[in-house]
């Protein structure tokens, strides 16, 4: 009986990882801006979800549930973050040797896109950023977003509107 339940839990969890792993990681990457930190925090999100699986009730939106955990994890990370020292290129290659299968040009292109996203997100306030990212990655309704970031619905809507206006302004600047 217990073994059967364990197997069911593992199957459900594997489904979650396959279906929502990319969204969770993308949300965290947009929040923390560092791929290696986003990877670590993604692991933490799924670990927390696994530990809390007994409390989870299937209500239709597992992605929203995971994104709520991810939002909490990102906020915790922001609170406990200490000044970090970046490694030099030489030191970095000692700790993280280059993957021979990885194309260098592809990595450079992605790094450029991350920079652009980072620059765009920097135009937003933290609350606007959370609302837009939860809307995109979590596909949540605005009521769910308001509940997740613990604010009234009209505040969540205002954050979204102002965030989009800031993005439009940035877009216009880029075009001009």
């Amino acid at each position, binding site marked *: 009986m217990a073994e059967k339940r364990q197997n069911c839990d593992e199957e459900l969890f594997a489904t979650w990882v396959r279906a929502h792993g990319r969204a969770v990681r993308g949300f965290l990457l947009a929040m923390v801006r560092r791929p290696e930190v986003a990877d670590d925090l993604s692991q933490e999100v799924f670990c927390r979800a696994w530990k809390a699986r007994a409390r989870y009730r299937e209500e239709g939106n597992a992605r929203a549930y995971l994104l709520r955990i991810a939002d909490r994890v990102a906020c915790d990370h922001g609170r406990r973050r200490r000044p970090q020292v970046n490694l030099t290129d030489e030191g970095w290659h000692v700790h993280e040797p280059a993957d021979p299968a990885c194309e260098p040009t592809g990595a450079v292109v992605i790094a450029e*896109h991350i920079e652009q996203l980072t620059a765009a997100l920097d135009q937003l306030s933290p609350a606007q950023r959370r609302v837009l990212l939860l809307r995109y990655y979590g596909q949540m309704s605005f009521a769910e977003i308001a509940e997740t970031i613990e604010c009234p*619905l009209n505040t969540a809507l205002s954050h979204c509107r102002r965030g989009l206006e800031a993005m439009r302004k940035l877009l216009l600047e880029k075009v001009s």
Partner: protein
Amino acid sequence: MTNNNLDKLQQLLEQATAQPQLQDGLTGEAAKLNEAWTAFVHLVEAAEPAGEPEILRWSMPQSTVTAASRPHRLTLSATAMLAASLLIGIVVAWSYLAGQSDKSSQQPVAIDRQVKPLEKHTATQVAKSQEVNNPKEVASVASRNATTTPKWDDSWDEQVSNMGKDVLYAQHELYAGPDAAGSLQYGIEQMQQEMTGNNL
């Protein structure tokens, strides 16, 4: 913000940020906000690596208790309980025996303290000297002396001597016939028969 305005704003934002296939015929502010939303989505999608992200290779935590490890844990706990109960038994037995030996070693000391006021007389001498004057006290001292003085445990000797007696009785019964007086009489009769038969 009134409820009417709130509903309008919510509807506007839901249209602007809806999935691409659900966006049709957006005009005015909704279209402007949708442009911004689309630009944001493109930025986010471009920043994501094309390959399989690390998260898809996630595995279950190793510390999770599985059904297979349960019998092993039960065996370990049973062994630990058995060892603990044995240890407790040994300690209890040891303390009990130590208490017994302490009692037997402390008794002569107590007697010496009781005997001290009698000054240079052993309990037996006191009993003998005061036997006539105070028979009750003498009896009590004598009984204390009898109970407290260490005695040689001769139960083993008694058992050996009793066994020897039993062997002798058995020999006697063996050699004695139903109408004979004993082994001595049997020997005398043998001698008489030899003498009368001129066997000598």
